[in-house]
């Protein structure tokens, strides 16, 4: 049932993407030189199938898309899907790094601010979370470039060669999720610390370090782990702007470039791919709830 819903969502998304990319201007105006004759425009439109009714165009688009054929990129003269697939690893690598960064940070700060509830550390965390949520990701990225790449010159601002190229984009992409995740870990940890088994363990004399980082963390991390898919999806969504800032050769930047060039096939392939990932990582969350924590079963 949930899988079916996911498929409906993907089909819906493809319709939205199709409609949205067709209401823009005439692509032949961009592809042909400005002195081209009207007949040449007509021929080109026919070649690209743009002269048919929209419904027919969509059906052709959809039936080809299912077979992995999004047509050739107008600009690069190569299959759009291939273009997107080539860029996909870069995007996924970045999203995974960002996810690791945000989860680690959230676990660390969330646990400590719950254990030392009300201390200066906890208050500092609250202020930091407020500030973090008020900063747009792309500006944070620019500030990182300004500080670490321009002023200090210790980290590269763009490109994708060594591991050091990952640091700034991954932190920027993960930035926005850190505040929400930390809050989640903190409140889960507070609940867990109150629970009977922790009280018992404490009474028995289990060392504090083991108590917190082993016994308590295991349960406190459950809400965060179940939400990983959602956060991964959020990172994919955020990649459009972050990749543009850091000149990261991923799907996000390719789509943004393609939008400006009105390169429909690439836009469609890129956005549809991101949506599929988005839908299915959300779906995975729903389906794995019960596996990770038997107390929460998906009820329908």
């Amino acid at each position: 049932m949930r899988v079916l819903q996911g498929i409906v969502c993907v089909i819906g998304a493809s319709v939205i993407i199709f409609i949205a990319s067709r209401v823009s201007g005439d692509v032949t105006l961009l592809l042909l030189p400005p002195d081209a004759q009207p007949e040449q425009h007509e021929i080109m439109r026919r070649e690209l199938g743009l002269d048919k009714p929209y419904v027919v165009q969509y059906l052709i688009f959809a039936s080809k898309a299912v077979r992995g054929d999004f047509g050739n990129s107008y600009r690069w003269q190569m299959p759009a899907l291939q273009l997107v697939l080539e860029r996909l690893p870069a995007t996924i690598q970045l999203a995974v790094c960002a996810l690791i960064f945000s989860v680690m940070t959230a676990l660390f700060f969330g646990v400590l601010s719950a254990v030392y509830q009300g201390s200066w550390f906890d208050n500092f965390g609250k202020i930091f979370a407020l500030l973090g949520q008020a900063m747009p990701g792309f500006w944070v990225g620019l500030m990182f470039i300004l500080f670490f790449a321009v002023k200090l010159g210790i980290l590269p601002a763009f490109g994708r060669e060594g591991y050091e190229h990952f640091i700034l984009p991954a932190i920027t992409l993960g930035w926005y999720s850190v505040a929400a995740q930390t809050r989640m870990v903190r409140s889960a940890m507070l609940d867990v610390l109150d629970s009977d088994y922790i009280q018992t363990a404490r009474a028995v004399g289990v060392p504090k370090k083991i108590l917190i980082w082993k016994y308590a963390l295991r349960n406190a991390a459950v809400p965060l782990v179940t939400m990983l898919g959602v956060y991964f999806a959020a990172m994919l969504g955020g990649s459009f702007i972050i990749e543009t800032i850091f000149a990261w050769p991923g799907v996000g930047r390719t789509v943004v470039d393609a939008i400006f060039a009105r390169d429909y096939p690439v836009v469609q392939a890129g956005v549809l791919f991101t949506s599929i990932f988005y839908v299915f990582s959300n779906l995975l969350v729903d389906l794995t709830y019960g596996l990770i924590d038997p107390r929460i079963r998906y009820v329908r």
Partner: protein
Amino acid sequence: MTSQSAPARNKSSIRWMLRFPWIPMIILFMVFSSALLGPIITPHKHGALNLGLAMKPPFWQENGSMSYPLGTDNMGRDILSRIIMGARITAIVALWAIPFSGAIGALMGMIAGYFGGKIDMLIMRLVDIQMSVPSLALALILAASLKPGVATVIIVIVVTYWTWYARIVRGEVLSLKERDFIALARVAGCSAWSILLKHFLPNIFNTLLVLATLQLGSVITYEASLSFLGLGIQPPDVSWGLMLADARPYITVAWWVIALPGLAIVITCLGSNLFGDWLRDTLDPKRRQL
């Protein structure tokens, strides 16, 4: 208010004064008044070019001067004036986009929740589908398809955010629907529309107000992101995101052209988020998780 005869009242009013979000209110007041006054208070015309004065740093740095307190950009335009004019675009976008997305979302949510059945299914599937496209991707496609500008930014925000209101309002309506006063209204022969408008709307109004204030911060960042990518506000209009986009190539030579417009965004977002938090805690404490 300091009368000795009413100590209890006095105490509670002091507590209220302390809890009232003065700083966020001051920030929002400053943003909206600079939006309103705009060209009257800007020290220079926001579009005035002066290449001889390009890239002047803010006044506290060497070579800075008080006549351009926050420095100038690559074309010698005064940054302070442009930030003030940027507030105007931010306010215009917010004042159009938030009421529209709220109204459409609330209406859809009320219809879905009240009538249930097929209509509910249709609307909620639409919400699901819409949410399955990453919102920025949808915004990029729409913004690229329509002619970029203020109106497009507003449309994009409305299209993206109505689902948010619809989901929450629907949930609210579903729980209100079982209450006696709704049943009584129905028994008394009220039409569906009058029940929705006279009985549901007043009850979800607080929630709507809280959602709207909380949306303000994200609308500001959203507009800035779109403008930054070149798909939002177009010159000669000024927006904070657009200022950042213009300044991006000069990041190695002038920090202020990048940092200061961004700071305007951060401060405004902070103000609206804090105000939204306060309003939520005051009006609608059960929505803490938002």
